[in-house]
């Protein structure tokens, strides 16, 4: 009671209603309820749309079962196709995340503490540019590069490393590099911001005390940059695991991504319920991942989402 009285006293009626209305709309109608409805839907039987909400549209675990055991008619004991796609998606996402950390940390450190003059500022500005380019186009650029007549094959063949073009697409090389590329900027900015806030004197002091360069990083810089690294890892993992454009464009015919399975369930199989169940599985995995990261690295959500 006290709160609302205070609230309207502070904001007045018109503004108070605007604030309340907008936030309620956003939180309830756009964030919370849709997720709950999707959760509910994922436990419903798959019936055609006209029957939704009728008795035929009852509750079931079949979609989650399907993810693990496959259809009842199947001879396999487990749904190896979907499970392996899921497993590969998660493992690849983790792998891509690690690659990005390894690539970004040295660059971020270089920009923040080694480069001098106007260069770092310019480079940071330049980093923003690819960040703004559409995800689809970034994937497309990789498709061009890695194509069998793409510049990479041409180059490798010309200098004699390969004697014939290598099918990067079919071997998922294009996909992995495209994914690493796609969200790399969400890794470098948090790390850069964190590393930059480190006092240069601390590095100097460590060097003065005779620390070798790797120990300076291990004991001084990396601990300081931890929140940035965590934040970058979380973002990159989530976006990679949830990516759709890059796998659709760069993925070979045999390497499906989990989001593509969801997409197929919706757009080709017309099985919205299963699609929802799979989306829930993806969401749950992401939440678990974030919680684990928060627990392991002892950071708060506020530090991750910036």
């Amino acid at each position, binding site marked *: 009671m006290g709160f609302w009285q205070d609230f309207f006293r502070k904001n007045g009626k018109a503004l108070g209603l605007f604030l309340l209305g907008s936030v309620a709309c956003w939180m309830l109608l756009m964030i919370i309820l849709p997720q709950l409805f999707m959760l509910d839907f994922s436990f419903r039987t798959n019936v055609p749309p006209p029957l939704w909400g009728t008795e035929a549209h009852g509750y079931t675990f079949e979609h989650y079962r399907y993810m693990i055991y496959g259809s009842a008619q199947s001879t396999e004991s487990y749904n190896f196709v979907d499970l392996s796609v899921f497993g590969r998606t998660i493992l690849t996402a983790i792998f891509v995340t690690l690659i990005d950390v390894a690539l970004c940390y040295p660059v971020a450190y270089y920009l923040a503490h080694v480069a001098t003059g106007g260069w770092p500022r310019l480079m940071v500005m330049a980093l923003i540019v690819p960040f703004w380019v559409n995800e689809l186009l970034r994937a497309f650029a990789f498709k061009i590069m890695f194509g069998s007549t793409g*510049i990479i094959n041409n180059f490798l063949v010309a200098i004699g490393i390969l004697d014939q*073009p290598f099918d990067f697409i079919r071997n998922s090389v294009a996909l992995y590099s495209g994914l690493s590329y796609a969200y790399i900027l969400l890794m470098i900015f948090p790390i850069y911001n964190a590393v930059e806030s480190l006092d240069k004197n601390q590095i100097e002091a460590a060097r003065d005390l005779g620390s070798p360069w790797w120990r300076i990083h291990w004991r001084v810089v990396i601990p300081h940059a931890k929140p940035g690294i965590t934040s970058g890892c979380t973002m990159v993992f989530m976006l990679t695991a949830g990516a*759709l454009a890059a796998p659709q464009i760069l993925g070979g015919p045999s390497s499906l991504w989990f989001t593509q399975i969801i997409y197929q369930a919706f757009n080709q199989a017309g099985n919205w319920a299963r699609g929802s169940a799979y989306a829930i599985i993806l969401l749950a995995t992401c939440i678990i991942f974030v919680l684990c990261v928060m627990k392991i690295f002892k950071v708060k959500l506020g530090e991750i989402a910036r």
Partner: protein
Amino acid sequence: MTSDHIRKSFSILFVLIFFAYLFGPLIIMSLTAFNSSSFPRVTPWECFSVEWFEFLTKDQKLIEGLQNSVFIGLGVVCLAVPMGLAGALMLTQVRERVRPWYYTITISPILVPGVVLGISTLLFWDRVGTMFGASRESVFYNGFFLTIIGQATFISAYTMLVFISRLQRFDRVQEEAALDLGATHVQTFRKILLPFLKPAIASAAVLAFLASFENYNTTVFTIVSESTLTTFLAAKVRHGINPSISALAVVIVVLTLLGAALHEAFKRRELAAEKESARVAKGEQKSRGAQSRFLFDPTVIMILLIFTAGLGTAYFAGTIGLDECKTEVLAEKRRIVQERIKKRQQKTMFQDAGRQALTPLTQEEIKKRQAAPGTSNFQGLFSPENLEEQVGTSKEETQDAPGRAGTENFQSIFAPRNLEEQVGSEEQKQSE
């Protein structure tokens, strides 16, 4: 000392490679848009051309998708900016205990996969529509409505973050001062808070529009039967690639860069204004010209100039001499083809001499491709081709290789592979 030097040069090299990795693909993609080759590539450079851009303007579906994207983007701006603002203002007012929960919920859409957001939006409004007994033509099933809602869900969180960081520098006492001087709450909002937030509103709006404009993951689910630029693009890329996509990419890249520069300019203007006022507050003299510099940020002007200059040159260079170049390339191709055919005819005595030069070759090649013999090492020495074609043509060519050395050299310059397709399409164009 020396190890220090080595380490230094190594790290510079690493950074250079990193930047090459970042920009290389985009630059290559952009270049392919200007190559007249019908497959997007750089290395067998044919003619400098802007025809792929002209090609774009004729694509009715593209124009439609673009219009839809702009419409949706504006819708998202209208929704996400006020909601983000309300969210940020509310954050300062909710009770201490509730605040972490509130923050977590409002920020969560950024972390939730876009696919999931799209699906949940689609499902939720479908169910709401069913509950109200709305027809399939109603707003609940409308792709635009769903897409705007779905995108605004997470874009509002972006704009909220923009407003939060701006509000942190706002002295809330100013609002009390205004109220105390007799202003109503609405007047206080309009005359005190809004002017302060103006730069943040501008940058949030640009951010929201860009984020909406390039969103794919959510849109692909919520758009239903309509199409936006990104879904159009995705469909096009998946169905087969040609340089018109590169051309489109160049246009989008240029537009987004302009947008990003605008966003950056707003941000820097805001920061500069703040620094200036802090400086003045410290009692230093106000520097003349500082004010006017904000309005015409040098970076923005530079970027604009470079783009216009680049586009202008590209256009003129593209129109001048394109036709000659093309005819040349075409003639070259024909010559090569005919040479090949001649050699084959001599060798195999297979061809009917009365036929036209091109047609038999095409048929022959198709047949050979179906036969698909093994590949040879020799072929790899020359500029690579599409795999299938290579497989198809290799056998004969290997046999007469020494005699064709001149041709091959020539080919490595122009390398008109994809013969049937290319020559065929050239002919089509000429016959038009």
